């Protein structure tokens, strides 16, 4: 459903993403891990067609982002880093705007927005201005925004970043509920999150893919089952006792 082929991005002389490839299927939550600056967001921006790749391509539900960006974008729901929104709009109005931009039929728009509002528990703030919402609510509005057109592929860039533990829990539960019918790529540097929601994960560092496998495989590399040690060994090359990669 999502196939990334040797995708690379250069900013001037700086190689931010270096020939990264992976695949994800329907029903799968693929974790996208790496330290800050590893190139996670840049990769996601290329998959969503926001940035042009320097080389390589991403195929989303059969559509190439390079050759047919509008078609690829139509099957993607995207939560950008820091979940930017149109702050001056009201929650419902904003979701309606997204629905119209995503060419939802006018007759179905209302019922679809109702559904989304329920799914993301936004009922209490439906008619509130986005700028007045708490961070947790804003994040849910951003998730809601990505779901309006019922996309097959979801790209979530650190959707739980900056939330308190309860809000993190809510967002993760929502993601798990969605997982069955969709293909989800979720970036994070919170390792517990990987174990909780991801079926498979990829680790990148300095733009290169360093690991691909299940969270279980990752954990088993450490004798003590300490996933953070494995992460450190993979991304920094340091030696940690009891960890073999």
């Amino acid at each position: 459903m999502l196939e990334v082929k040797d995708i690379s991005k250069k900013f001037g002389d700086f190689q931010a993403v270096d020939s990264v490839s992976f695949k994800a299927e329907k029903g799968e939550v693929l974790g996208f891990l790496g330290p800050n600056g590893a190139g996670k967001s840049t990769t996601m921006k290329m998959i969503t067609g926001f940035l042009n790749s320097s080389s390589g391509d991403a195929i989303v539900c059969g559509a190439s982002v390079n050759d047919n960006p509008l078609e690829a974008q139509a099957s993607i729901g995207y939560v950008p880093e820091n979940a930017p929104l149109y702050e001056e709009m009201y929650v419902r109005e904003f979701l309606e705007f997204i629905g119209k931009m995503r060419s939802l039929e006018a007759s179905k728009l209302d019922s679809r927005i109702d559904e989304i509002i329920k799914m993301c528990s936004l009922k209490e703030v439906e008619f509130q201005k986005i700028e007045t919402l708490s961070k947790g609510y804003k994040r849910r509005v951003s998730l809601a925004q990505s779901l309006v057109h019922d996309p097959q592929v979801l790209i979530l860039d650190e959707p739980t970043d900056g939330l308190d533990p309860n809000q993190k829990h809510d967002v993760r539960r929502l993601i798990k509920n969605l997982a069955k019918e969709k293909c989800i790529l979720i970036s994070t540097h919170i390792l517990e999150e990987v174990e909780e929601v991801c079926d498979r994960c990829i680790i990148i560092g300095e733009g290169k893919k360093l690991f691909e496998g299940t969270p279980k495989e990752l954990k088993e590399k450490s004798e003590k089952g300490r996933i953070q040690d494995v992460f450190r060994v993979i991304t920094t090359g340091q030696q940690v006792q009891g960890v073999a990669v």
Partner: protein
Amino acid sequence: MIAQVTKELMIKEIKSYFKTPLGYVFLVIFLFGIGYLTFEPGRGSFFYMREASMSAFFRYIPWMFLFLIPAVSMKLWAEERKSGSIELLLTMPITVRQAVVAKFLASWAFIGLALLGTTPMIFTVSYLGNPDFGVIILGYLASFLMAGALLAVGGFFSALTKNQVVSFILTVVACFILIMAGSPPILEFISALLPKYFVDLFESLSVLNHFDSIERGVFSLSNLWFFAVTIFFWLFGSIILLNENKAN
């Protein structure tokens, strides 16, 4: 002909002018400002001219626009880039070209509304005498076209920087040069540096000359072409610029 996404974005953008005080502040300053300048009992103003025409009104339009249009255009792209919402916008199935056109048309429609708000002046003038309505309509057309050209310039500078204040200042400077391009001091300055050919070229780029010629009731296709090309040129520049720097 216009894609649905373009239309939807345009509607959202027009509404957004009325979601912040900026839109209302603009309308109030514009309407009171132009009213004051027109009827203020000084030289060249309405009463002094003792004729039932709106030429006093149209004479001040370019100078009102010089400061107010950059205020309308400054946020077009700067705000989207600063908040990151540009990422939301451009990952929806809309091209940069469509988005640039939609935002431009929305800002133009907003200025159109502001101009509509001045139409009571027509009744005042026709109550006082027998104005030439053809000339008045051409005056409005000239004002609207000029607004389009200056907004296209402003959209470009809004795409250039994330800082709205910088965008405002750059647009004022650029618009001032465009408006004044045909004025003697600027032409003298240029003729000291460049051959005559460039001086003529520069003079023909003067927004004010084209505005004046329409406003005086001399409307030619070349005036229309001038504004169309100016708008096209700056919108095209915005598209190139955004494709380059949208992610920075």
